[in-house]
Every structure is written in structure tokens, then in C-alpha cells.
């Protein structure tokens, strides 16, 4: 007798791996994690974390360390042989695919992203051209995009220092988040978990950016020494 697709779907949706044999008999085993919309079985942990993390396409990756230099949350690291790898999945910010946008080789995927090539769709010639354009813009800005951004930030600081307001900034963040939610970019349950009063300050973001850039440079230097 064939297995029931509805019964199997229910087991899967509550976090079970299901083995179906040729006779239609099902054997279920809980993975230990329960998807957000399901009831966790007694004793099993309930996780709200959506499996959102970067996946590196090593057929495309050139080990340039741009992702390591860019990520503010310490998701990336290098292995003992100096190869870039994803080391801290849980630190990745749900629905943020920013590192994939800085990868010049279109080698970073987020399988649960809505569109390609970030979601793993084959990389087209136009995707590569777009990445090349980004690199060219970086060169036009003097080759060091970070220094250009720092200069621009310094100028902006003096311009905005007179009108700085923490309340205004929080309202603006809320407005942007609402807009993103309406456009379907952030699920309601993710938005509900964001503590607006606890977002990192601009200074903290700058500190993390400098730390990430230093990590990337150190990895590049180490690789250069190796070769």
C-alpha cells in the first residue's frame, strides 16, 4: 500500500526525517530541530532560526577574501590552509545577502533567497558583467573603495552633526523596516524579533568593519607568505 503523502508532509513539517520503504512503510526520526510553524515534540527544542547562511560555490571562488573583509558579523573565517570558509552560520543575519553582492565572482549563494543568481541559479554572462562593473567603479574611485567611503563618511558627519537625533534615527529605521516588510523582504516573525533599541551604533558598525577588513587582509597576507 503506498505511503500517504499528507502524513509524510506532516512529519516533515514538524522536523522529522522520513524513510519510506518499497512497501510504503514509513520510519520517522526527529532531527532535533522543529521548523517555526510546527509544534515541537515533547523534549525537543523549538528553534526559530531560519537556516539562512552563505554557501560558497568553490568552483567559482578565487579566495579573494572580499567576503571576510566585508561581513560585520564574523560569519567567515579561513581554514588551516588559508581557504575561505563559512565558520559561523548562526551569526548570519536572516535575509541579509549583502556579502553575496560584494563577491566579484558571484560565488556566494543563499539558497533561500528569492532570486538568482544569489539563490544558486546558474550564473549568466550579464551577472558577471554586473560584477565587473562594480570592480571598475571601485577602481574609478581610486582603487580603495573603503578609504573613499571613509572620506565620504567624514564629510557626512560634519554635515549631519547639527541635526543628529537618536529618536529620528530610530523612526527612520522603523520606517525602512516597515517598507521592507510590506515589500515581502522581511517576514513578520523576523521583524518581531528585532530589538530596535539594541541595534549597533554607527561607531560600532565602523569598528566591526575595520575588524573585518583587518581579518581579510591578514588572511591575504598569510596566503601570500605561503606561496
Amino acid at each position: 500500500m503506498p505511503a500517504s503523502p499528507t502524513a509524510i508532509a506532516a512529519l516533515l513539517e514538524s522536523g522529522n526525517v522520513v524513510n519510506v520503504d518499497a512497501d510504503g512503510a514509513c520510519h520517522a526520526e526527529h532531527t532535533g530541530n522543529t521548523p517555526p510553524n510546527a509544534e515541537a515534540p515533547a523534549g525537543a527544542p523549538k528553534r526559530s532560526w531560519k537556516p539562512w547562511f552563505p554557501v560558497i560555490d568553490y568552483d567559482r571562488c578565487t579566495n579573494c577574501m572580499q567576503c571576510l573583509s566585508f561581513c560585520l558579523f564574523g560569519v567567515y573565517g579561513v581554514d588551516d590552509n588559508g581557504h575561505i570558509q563559512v565558520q559561523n552560520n548562526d551569526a548570519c543575519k536572516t535575509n541579509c545577502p549583502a556579502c553575496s553582492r560584494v563577491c566579484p565572482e558571484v560565488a556566494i549563494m543563499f539558497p533561500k533567497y528569492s532570486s538568482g543568481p544569489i539563490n544558486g541559479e546558474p550564473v549568466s554572462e550579464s551577472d558577471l558583467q554586473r560584477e565587473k562593473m562594480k570592480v571598475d567603479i571601485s577602481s574609478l574611485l581610486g582603487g580603495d573603495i573603503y578609504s573613499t567611503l571613509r572620506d565620504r563618511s567624514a564629510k557626512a558627519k560634519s554635515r549631519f552633526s547639527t541635526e543628529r537625533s537618536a529618536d529620528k534615527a530610530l523612526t527612520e529605521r522603523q520606517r525602512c523596516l516597515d517598507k521592507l516588510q510590506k515589500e515581502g523582504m522581511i517576514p513578520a516573525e523576523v521583524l518581531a524579533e528585532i530589538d530596535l533599541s539594541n541595534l549597533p551604533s554607527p561607531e560600532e558598525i565602523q569598528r566591526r568593519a575595520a575588524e573585518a577588513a583587518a581579518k581579510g587582509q591578514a588572511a591575504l597576507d598569510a596566503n601570500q607568505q605561503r606561496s
Partner: protein
Amino acid sequence: MPRTIYCRCAYAQIIPGPVKDAHLKNLCESGEAFDAVPDLCEMAANRHPKLKEIAQEEEVRIVACHPRAVKGLFTQAGCPLPATADIINMREQTAP
């Protein structure tokens, strides 16, 4: 006969429900043994031992999403898929 693995993508709504249901129904009616997993991404993130077991099969067919992403997930979990793995992409299909 290849070992078939079906991914339900339980943590996100990126594959239309009717497409996932249709594939599951076909597998149930095929009379072949298969494994169904809640979410390959979640299992790769946690390096679930089942992935290693799957990757060691001589012939494997995976019903999930974009092949580049599926291969990347297995590689990142430390158990690369064999080059012969057949990956069926439910993201590119509409409900029958």
C-alpha cells in the same frame, strides 16, 4: 537504482506548496523506497550525519532546488556529492 532524497524546504516558502506536494505524491506512488528530509539547508547547517550517508551513495537523486546550491550545501557540510548526482530543481517547476 539511485537512492532518492526529497527535501520539503520546511523553513521557507520558496517552493510552491503544490509543486512540493506533487513530487511527494509521485514518489509515494512510484513504489520505490526514498528518504524525505525536512530541510536540506537546516541539515547542512548542523552537519546532520544523514548528509554524509547520502553523499556516499554511488547513485543519488535529490529532489530539491537549484543544483549549484544543493552541491554547495553538501560541500560546505563536509560531504561533497558525487559528480553523477542527479538533482531535480523544484524551484523551476510549476504545479501540474
